[in-house]
């Protein structure tokens, strides 16, 4: 009665390697699809691709630019990843980053002191700014069950307006730039001509997260609560407080990232401080799954794509195209988690009825 061949069967556990493989295939398919569309719209895809590679890896300057873009994306992805561990969707990295930047800029612009001390103060202010901004959705989610996706997204819009107001009106430079504050007098030390110490921070944060989540009691509790909050509660963990704390820790990482922009790459507070890097970080975290190493690798790749979009602006490709490609990658790669739940098995032959 049954057809020969194979059929799909759903299984109770996810196969991680299968998920990773499907994601890679999905991302490549998305790039291929985007390439075909570009080709059809009269833009020579292969030429663009080789030019993009050249811009990214062709010289030290290109590599530096890519790493500068990658650092906040990876930090954002790590912050998102931390929330994933407890099943929270923090889509508010951009807002938390912005408020971290605002807090550290406030310190940097309005307080005088020795450079090292002031940088430390700005780090604290940045982390605190991000953490407090994340406290709002954290509390609303933990104690009132208000969907954190919507609140974090709305708070992004609020934070952006605050940054615009401060940089254009309240703390405006008045002379040199109409769109930013005057330069922050304190700067993160440089590693090379184009790179500051900030590019190392993601690695540091990644290391700390790996240790805390993988080895500590706090990380264990967070993992259990994320997998089954009720089981965590029954075992004596305080779930609501942990949701708020994780959200705040995630916001602190984002805020730190905002501080690194203000005291590093940008040197000022302007509306470019977040520039959707949190959203890109979200894509990275979603693609990388449960692996911190994968977050760093995927983060750099996503940054290369973004850098290509910026560099190729004169050749008819824009960051808007890159954003659309991001969407396509995320869409196709999201099949990974679904595919991991299936296996292909041979059909059974039917037994004859007795």
């Amino acid at each position, binding site marked *: 009665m049954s057809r020969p061949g194979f059929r799909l069967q759903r299984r109770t556990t996810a196969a991680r390697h299968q998920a990773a493989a499907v994601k890679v295939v999905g991302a490549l398919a998305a790039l291929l699809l985007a390439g075909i569309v570009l080709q059809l719209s009269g833009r020579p895809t292969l030429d663009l691709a080789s030019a993009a590679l050249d811009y990214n890896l062709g010289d030290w300057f290109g590599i530096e630019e890519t790493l500068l873009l990658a650092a906040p994306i990876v930090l954002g992805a790590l912050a998102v990843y931390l929330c994933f561990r407890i099943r929270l969707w923090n889509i508010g990295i951009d807002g938390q980053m912005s408020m971290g930047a605002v807090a550290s800029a406030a310190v940097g612009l309005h307080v005088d002191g020795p450079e090292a001390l002031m940088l430390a103060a700005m780090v604290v202010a940045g982390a605190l700014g991000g953490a407090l901004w994340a406290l709002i959705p954290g509390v609303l989610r933990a104690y009132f069950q208000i969907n954190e996706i919507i609140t974090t997204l709305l708070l992004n819009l609020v934070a952006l307006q605050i940054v615009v107001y401060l940089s254009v009106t309240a703390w405006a430079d008045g002379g040199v730039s109409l769109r930013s504050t005057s330069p922050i007098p304190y700067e993160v030390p440089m590693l090379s001509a184009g790179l500051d110490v900030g590019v190392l921070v993601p690695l540091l944060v990644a290391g700390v997260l790996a240790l805390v989540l993988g080895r500590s009691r706090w990380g*264990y509790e967070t993992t259990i609560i994320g997998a089954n909050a009720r089981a965590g*509660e029954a075992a004596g963990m*305080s779930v609501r407080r942990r949701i708020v704390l994780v959200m705040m820790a995630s916001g602190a990482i984002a805020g730190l990232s905002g501080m690194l922009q203000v005291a590093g790459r940008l040197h000022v507070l302007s509306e470019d401080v977040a520039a959707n890097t949190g959203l890109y970080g979200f894509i990275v975290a979603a693609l990388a799954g449960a692996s911190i190493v994968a977050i760093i690798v995927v983060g750099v790749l996503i940054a290369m794509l973004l850098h290509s979009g910026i560099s190729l602006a004169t050749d008819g490709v824009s960051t808007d195209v890159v954003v659309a490609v991001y969407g396509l990658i995320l869409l196709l790669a999201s099949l990974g988690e679904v595919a991991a739940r299936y296996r292909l098995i041979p059909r*059974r032959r039917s037994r004859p009825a007795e």
Partner: protein
Amino acid sequence: MSDAALLAAEGISKSFDQTLALDGVDLKLDPGEVHALLGENGAGKTTLANVLAGIYRPDAGVIRTPGGVVSAQSPREAIAAGVGMVHQHFRLAEALTGAENLHLGWSDTPRFAGPRLLAERTDRICEEYGLKVDARLPVWQMSVGERQRLEILRVLVRGARVLMLDEPTAVLTPTEVDGLFDALRKLAAAGRSVLFVSHKLNEVLEISDRITVLRGGRVEATRSAASTTAAELARLMTGHETPPGAPRGARPGDAAVLEVEGVSVRGSHGRRALAGVSFAVQEGEILGIAGVSGNGQTELAEVVTGLRTPEEGSVSVDGEQLGGASPRRFAAAGVGYIPADRMATALAGSCSVLENAIVRDYDRPPLARYGMIDRGAARRFTAELVAEAGVRGADDIGAPVSILSGGNQQKLVAHREARMARRLLVACLPTRGLDVAAAHAIRNKLLERRGAGAGVLLISEDLDELLELSDRVLVLYEGAIAGEFSAGGADRDRIGIAMGGGLRPAGAPAAA
């Protein structure tokens, strides 16, 4: 096959993951018969019923009805072929009313109709079939018996000639069971065919005309009820004679481990779930709590484990007032908890066996050191726990706990909780859905705690289990204690009446 059969399944096979749940099963249902599908938990009864109802797609096999061969690919097709099913876990939308649940997905429902019209139609249908349901009440406010009647109505009005019921008596009071059996006999007498899925021998013998026994996914035998005995059926079900009852130890002590006084709480939707409940559990005593689900059992278990804060009243363990304290405080006082739904409350399914095994011990030495978890110690601890609990299939303790069978998951939970339950073990439906061997292991675990001088609060819907294990039985009805019985002289009928609300706490005569 006889032409008269309302449904005939031939060679049905179905597998999940790597396990073969059904292996070439044949089944024939004639008009006018109540046909029992008997088997232990895990024998494949529910899977077979789900295949016949179009919920699961069989890997192999044919299903014939008078209309011809159906390859029921969906419940819709099965319904069209006259096959309807009442699931053990009711398929009702809780937020919708009785009338709405009856009318959803039904082609006879008027295209445009307001709540009033649907309710009137429902009232008429209830009258026609003699099954009483409140059309205007949202389902979450209904008793289990009422929900079941609603499910049966829903299947009948769609013209089902074959009615399948999966473990329909599991959640009913004895009085409600009698009502259900009357209804089923009338349906059969009207020419329908009823498939009664159960693991309870006595009920099956009482209600059915023919009995098909499943074991390990295969049909063991089909017997007419008149020509078989409970002993024969038990042997067919299990493949061996029934094991003797568990041995009982000494009498309970005098000191109270758990004292609950005047406790009231609210459950979901702000409904009052417990109203002024008082009782005590002694050292070395198993106190059984009987009652139909939804009468406050879950809330009671949560109050005495710290998961729910009482609005009024006190809860104390060994004399220490703990009402409203955190689950951590209860755990520190030596209270363990085997919840009714292990995957919802006791285990984190996607986490590893190890992560689930250490959940009661991770926060103190030897597992915890300076805020970190010693992985070597955790691994040794887990290996030991798994071995002591007799959990099979956990050779890789890094694998997700969800790959273990239900019985092995429950053994892990029961052992983990019993280990830390120095003073009190709270167990909710601890053997539900388990095969005989696993259920036996869990019952022994409860008795072992009793023997060690701890108190055990056993909350169950299975009266046989309660009477076998408990020293005393309390009946919970609508959030209050509706009767207390000593297990020795317990009168099943009177407990049954109390479960249905027929006994007043004051001892007033039964109203039912």
